[in-house]
């Protein structure tokens, strides 16, 4: 009888203990390496985009170790799979920082995954390098945003269409989540400030993975036949793009008639698409694989060699990781330690070469400077740059076109050290507009 009870105790306890043991094993690893966390989904819906970034990180760490590592120590990647499950991102982030004691984490793709890990990085005071273009409206002490803010992607693209294509009528089509919603809000305000009438803007949202685009493409076609030059600004997310472009092509909408400029379609996405009918449609990024610079050529060659796949493409978030990783390395070397506080102080102002022939600098708002490129999709799935900003654009975390954020700035340098400083009231904490 008593044995029975003990059996159960052991059983329940074993379950709990197994968790503890299995998860704390890596903590006892040797101390002569610097650990770098890689937090990208390798399964689930986001694996499609994030797996490449995991490979990029492994590649970069490998390269750095070939150069002799960092601070005399080798770098060691700790890869976990948050499986496209947002609360699991938080759990894994906690594990990387608290158990594996990583010096910095490179990861996340979707806004929600970033939002999910933010409190963890804040609480445990670690570093996150976030490589994807996002909606802005955020600046956090422990996060470095190496992807584009809306002003580094969306606004230049709209400018290009207005100036070079004479577009007067706009369809803002997006997947219904925060990035498109915010970007479209910003664009709407921006377009209206440029004198575009309200009735010349059509906003449309679709669910994730939307595959039946017949109605919407027809709507776009009808909207576009009002006698004014029309363009589509697409913030349609990943998977839904393929059927969208197929429907566009089949309904005979050519880039010459209604060009589509997309912010979420890169080389990686186009690799899964018959690009023939897409030629001439536009994308706006801060990097294209086709950009002809020696740095880029070298990077692509090494990358193809590392992945042992001559067809492997590169894309913008990969470049963001390259920049972010190099910045972190430089900042650690500058600070002489991997201590997060020291790195946070040291990294501001750090400038590293990007792959497009210039330098990117970490600004006090934890966003970086980037050039903006508008590319036309080519038949081989590459982009051909048709326009680029003359200089570098500083990432603007608080959009100037949203009423509640136009007065805010972020500056993480010593005296201010604030992510939402209101220049009107002169206070940190965003107060003032309401």
């Amino acid at each position, binding site marked *: 009888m008593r044995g029975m009870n003990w059996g159960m105790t052991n059983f329940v306890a074993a379950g709990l203990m197994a968790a503890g043991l299995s998860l704390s094993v890596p903590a006892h690893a040797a101390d002569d390496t610097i650990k770098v966390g890689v937090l990208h989904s390798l*399964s689930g819906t986001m694996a*499609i985009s994030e797996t*490449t970034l995991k490979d990029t990180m492994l590649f970069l760490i490998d390269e750095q170790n070939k150069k002799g590592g960092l601070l005399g120590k080798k770098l060691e990647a700790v890869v976990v799979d948050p499986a496209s499950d947002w609360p699991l991102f938080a759990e894994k982030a906690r594990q990387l920082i608290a158990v594996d004691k990583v010096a910095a984490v490179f990861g996340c793709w979707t806004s929600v995954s970033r939002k999910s890990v933010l409190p963890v990085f804040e609480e445990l005071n670690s570093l996150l390098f976030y490589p994807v273009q996002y909606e802005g409206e955020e600046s956090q002490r422990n996060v470095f945003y190496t992807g584009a803010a809306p002003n580094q992607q969306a606004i230049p693209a709209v400018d290009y269409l207005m100036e070079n294509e004479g577009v007067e009528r706009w369809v803002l089509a997006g997947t219904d989540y925060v990035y498109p919603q915010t970007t479209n809000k910003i664009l709407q305000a921006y377009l209206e400030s440029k004198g575009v009438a309200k009735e010349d803007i059509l906003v449309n949202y679709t669910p994730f993975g939307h595959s039946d685009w017949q109605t919407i493409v027809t709507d776009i076609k009808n909207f576009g036949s009002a*006698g004014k030059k029309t363009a589509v600004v697409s913030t349609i997310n990943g998977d839904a793009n393929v059927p969208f472009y197929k429907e566009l092509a089949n309904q005979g909408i050519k*880039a010459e008639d209604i060009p589509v400029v997309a912010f979420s379609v890169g080389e990686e996405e186009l690799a*899964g698409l018959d690009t023939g009918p897409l030629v001439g449609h536009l994308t706006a990024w801060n990097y294209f694989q086709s950009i002809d610079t020696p740095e880029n050529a070298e990077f692509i060659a090494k990358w193809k060699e590392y992945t042992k796949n001559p067809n492997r493409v590169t894309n913008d978030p990969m470049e963001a990781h390259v920049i972010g990783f190099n910045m972190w390395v430089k900042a650690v070397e500058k600070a002489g330690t991997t201590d997060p506080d020291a790195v946070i102080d040291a990294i501001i102002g750090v400038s590293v070469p990007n792959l497009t022939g210039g330098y990117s600098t970490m600004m006090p708002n934890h966003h970086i400077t980037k050039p903006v490129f508008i590319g036309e999709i080519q038949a081989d799935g590459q982009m051909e740059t048709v326009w680029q900003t003359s200089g570098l654009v500083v990432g603007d975390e608080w959009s100037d076109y949203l009423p509640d954020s136009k007065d805010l700035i972020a500056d993480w340098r010593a005296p201010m050290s604030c992510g939402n400083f209101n220049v009107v009231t002169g206070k940190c904490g965003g107060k003032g507009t309401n």
Partner: protein
Amino acid sequence: MRMPRVIVLLAALLAAGLFAASADEDGLRRIIAKFADAKDFKATEAVARELAETGDPAVERVLLALADGNLFVRKGDGAVFVGKETGASVTLSDPLTGEKAGEAAKAEITKVKVNNGLRRLIRDLLGGLTLGSADPLTRGVAADTMFRTPDAANIEALDAAIARETVASVKARLEQARAASILVSDGSDEEKVVAIAVVEARGDRDALSLLTAVAARTEGAVREAAENAIAQVNGRLALWAAGQNVWYGISLGSVLLLAAIGLAITFGVMGVINMAHGEMVMLGAYTTYVVQSIIRTSFPGLFDWSLAFALPLAFLVAAAVGLAIERGIIRFLYGRPLETLLATWGVSLILQQSVRTLFGPTNREVGNPSWMSGGFDLGQMALTWNRFWIVLFALGVFAVLLYVMKRTPWGLQMRAVTANRRMAASMGIRTPWVDALTFALGSGIAGIAGVALSQIDNVSPNLGQGYIIDSFMVVVFGGVGNLWGTLVGAMSLGVLNKFLEPYAGAVLGKILVLVLIILFIQKRPRGLFALKGRAVEA
């Protein structure tokens, strides 16, 4: 830029017919050489215009090459060539004569950049040239281009073309283009009112956009006529739009039908909840990908036939996997539908991850054969070929399946086993094999659905998940165990969805459909076409 360029070009065309060689080749070469110095699109555009203004038909080669991004400048000497990329090098040819001019490495030359604005300009510039083409189709297209970009200067050329035209339909389009040109000219009001009637008769979106522009800029009788015409056109377009919506609904319904029809067999006939059904669809899509990859590398000429090869293979692959699942797992779980559900869900995870491991997590490229690309107009309705074929294909699959079930010995056995297993067994039917083959059939059908869906959707490991819930809804809504129910269910859900979409938006429309299904199931717990019976429930 309101030059009567069409006339010039037409004249040039005639001239080209009289004199074999161009009069001023050197002049053209001088202009072409300017492409080398064009630093931005504006400069390139100016050169293109200058070329077109010469009216020399020989410029067509250069302009087409420019539009297609095939115009190159040699870095060494600034010479301009038409190039064709072959691997790492580019085969160069003379921009005017087309004579071979050797090869160059990609590093040695730069492409003359082109953007949409330029392509559009070149299309317009060349539009005039083709008005005199021998091919009536090309003439029609030219007329439509001129309709969309009306120019008073075109009227004379159009008059001449109308006088020459022998094909009635092309003639009508030319007349519409002429009317459009009149509307932007400074002709008399009477003339314009007549022109408005011509444009109104055309009745499409282009006509509407033209009329809207006219109404905005004119006054008095013309404006009144234009406004009336707009109302007329709008009324007709609204009718067409309703028809278009029905078509979209049917098209969506046929996709649902394809996804659900295999399930109608495994779930409806056998009572097996196959949560891995979506993955069978996915396997079919990946089979298409593999077939196309092989064809692309080994037999590029057969690409248009790729789907014909993929169909039987997809059926076999999915059926084989289905057979393995039935023999390996499901047969132990008969009579325990809820546990089958769990086990097959597990199978679906394994299949997804296997595909992810084998093919990578990213989308795979599956191309449309030429006969599935593009579209055609039916009145004011735009139908796309891929949707059109998929509708036919879905109905075809349905018909074949119906035939198999109702008319073949195998179908008879299947139905016998469903109706009374023991009796069937004692009649000598090998019921376990009928079960296994029925399941394989359902899976195989899902596989060929995958071939069709690969034409409109992503081919990724997540493909199947997107369809599984919808398929279950269709089968349950239509009534389990009834193929006709599945057909009606799929079509009505498709049409319903498409009619809700314009009002509620895509997301809310889908939610409403789901809620309606939930409510419908309350009303008819066994679906639309449920069989009534006295069978005592357990």
